[in-house]
């Protein structure tokens, strides 16, 4: 028996769907000569809108029943009934799997197209970003919506250093990361006392401030025009371009006596990103098991209890912000080098949202989950190019479905089991 209340609610939702989709999809602007006129869309769109409204109506009407069913569909979730493996076996399997994966990742680029390698580099950059944000959001439990700001700091540091002082990628890499870390520290101070929604809003604002600053400080950052001509990384002083740009350098293909190919550079960048991503993962994994990592989680679980045991909120929060920002700086430097050109447009809020979505999808705190989610979130939209207009829609739908089926994320964090010696 469906209650009257449900019926009212469902009707309301359906009407809202109509009201929203009518102007967005049902009307079209057409240029007729110099005039712009408003026209109705073709009948197919209208039918689609009607169907959508009907779907919303029915879903809302039988919402409880549908969601209940979905929750029960355990068969859709292959991991549901599996018993957890004993830790030793799991660790062994995991390390074998990881080694294989890394070896594969090292060989793979030599056999595929340039575009795929390029995309893979982007995936690795997102992995670095998500692993870093995982420290702040997943471990320390601080909702940071402005994470992209630190990514921008890393990228712009490299771009500006190379533009004004001709500093190379390898020099800029640590400088960019350290400067981003410094920004993390600086942002950390004013938000120490904030929590939850307030923290989210302030960090969101911080992200926007950095972007607007980059946009408007035209004589230094080039404003919306961005900065171009960012150099590629070199390998022991060897450049990857057709011609050597910097005096004293030699070119890669001449040194080895092979024909010039644009692919060398792409693969080299990919390998750098791979090494840095593995480095990021390993360092953070280690941090998680150190006193600082435990302190992050303790603060997330119960701040008052953590303080009653002598942990200082200031130290713990700042370390999370700083270390998270550090790795965003890393990713930013690689990104600038990969693109060769950066502008504030690459550092909009949507980027923060995507990185956050990766962390949440992956299962807060879990590194493997975050890596899987980073791959999925970056590659799937590329595969579904035809639907690119509906990208955000699909993305949103995927998030909602995830929250229904696996609110804990793809691979929720598994706690390390510690062997204790009995008796003293």
């Amino acid at each position, binding site marked *: 028996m469906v209650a009257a209340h449900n019926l009212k609610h469902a009707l309301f939702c359906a009407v809202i769907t109509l009201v929203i989709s009518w102007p967005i999809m049902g009307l079209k602007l057409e240029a007729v000569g110099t005039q712009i006129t408003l026209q109705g869309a073709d009948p197919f769109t209208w039918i689609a809108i009607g169907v959508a409204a009907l779907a919303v109506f029915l879903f809302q009407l039988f919402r409880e029943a549908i969601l209940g069913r979905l929750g029960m569909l355990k068969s859709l979730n292959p991991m549901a009934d599996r018993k957890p493996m004993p830790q030793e076996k799991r660790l062994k399997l995991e390390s074998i799997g990881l080694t294989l994966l890394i070896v594969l990742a090292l060989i793979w680029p030599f056999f595929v197209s340039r575009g795929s390698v390029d995309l893979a580099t982007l995936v690795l950059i997102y992995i670095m970003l998500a692993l870093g944000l995982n420290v702040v959001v997943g471990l320390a439990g601080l909702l940071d919506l402005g994470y992209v700001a630190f990514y921008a700091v890393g990228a712009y540091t490299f771009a500006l250093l190379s533009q004004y002082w001709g500093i190379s990628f390898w020099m800029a890499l640590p400088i960019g990361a350290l400067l981003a870390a410094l920004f993390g520290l600086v942002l950390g101070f004013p938000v120490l006392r904030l929590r939850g929604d307030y923290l989210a809003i302030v960090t969101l604002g911080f992200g926007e401030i950095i972007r607007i600053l980059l946009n408007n400080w035209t004589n230094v950052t080039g404003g919306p025009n961005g900065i171009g001509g960012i150099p590629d990384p070199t390998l022991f002083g060897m450049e990857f371009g057709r011609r050597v740009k910097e005096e004293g350098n030699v070119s890669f293909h001449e040194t080895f006596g092979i024909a010039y190919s644009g692919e060398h550079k792409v693969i080299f960048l990919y390998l750098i990103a791979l090494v840095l991503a593995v480095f990021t993962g390993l360092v953070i994994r280690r*941090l998680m098991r150190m006193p600082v990592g435990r302190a992050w989680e303790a603060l997330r*679980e*119960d701040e008052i209890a953590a*303080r009653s045991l*002598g*942990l200082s909120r200031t130290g713990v929060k700042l370390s999370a912000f700083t270390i998270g920002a550090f790795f965003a700086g890393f990713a930013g430097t690689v990104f600038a080098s990969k693109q060769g050109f950066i502008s504030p447009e690459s550092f909009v809020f949507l980027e923060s949202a995507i990185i956050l979505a990766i962390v949440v999808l992956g299962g807060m705190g879990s590194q493997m989950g975050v890596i899987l989610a980073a791959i999925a979130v970056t590659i799937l939209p590329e595969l579904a190019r035809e639907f690119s207009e509906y990208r955000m829609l699909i993305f949103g739908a995927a998030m909602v479905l995830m929250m229904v089926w696996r609110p804990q994320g793809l691979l929720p964090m598994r706690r390390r*089991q510690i062997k*204790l010696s*009995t008796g003293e």
Partner: protein
Amino acid sequence: MLEVQNLSMRFGGLLAVDQVSLDVQEHEIVSIIGPNGAGKTTVFNCMSGFYKPSGGKILFRGQEIQGKPDYRISRLGLVRTFQHVRLFGRMTVVENLMVAQHRHLNTNLLSGLVATPNYRAREQKALDRASYWLERVGLMEMANREAGNLAYGQQRRLEIARCMVTEPQLLMLDEPAAGLNPAETRDLDQLIISLKEDYNVSVVLIEHDMSLVMGISDRINVISQGRPLASGTPDEIRNNDDVIKAYLGEA
């Protein structure tokens, strides 16, 4: 070792604690009792630095600590439990105990990342201390469970163990027996006495369970509606007219 002098705490118009004084000597169990809402937890909150008292002094080994930040007070060796258990629920039992030993560990990031011998030795020592206390409170089997999944009585014991691994000098327990069954309460009774006898810790205890309080306290302070009502040995308190009246009035 601890002396509270004329402590007052005002929340807006409400004077929750009014001129309360108490002292704790080395090797002593001192209880604070009083009807619901008397201000007992508020006294604890002032002593542990969660609230900045509106008036009065708190001296720990001669040093004024009122208004100091909570984590500093805890590092001095004054550690507390909470009326409503506060564990790190999604961390394992051992991890809860490791977090508490932060101060005894090598927290230098670089030593940790390269795992220097000093780092590893201190980590191992902390693990040993953790297993010792897990054994002591009977939670060894639960070591790798998530703390949030423990039974209520086990959570209470874990909270005490978590305080003890910090090697405190003064332990403040806020209603540790609340929600425990009679058998568990008896164990707790033994545990608290042993903390005093074997580990040389002084205890300040807030508790409603009168048989527990009367049985193990060296001295008792009674407060009612924020004001001190009586103080003395269990026998003196048992026969104090004001106390009897206050408790009968409540019932």
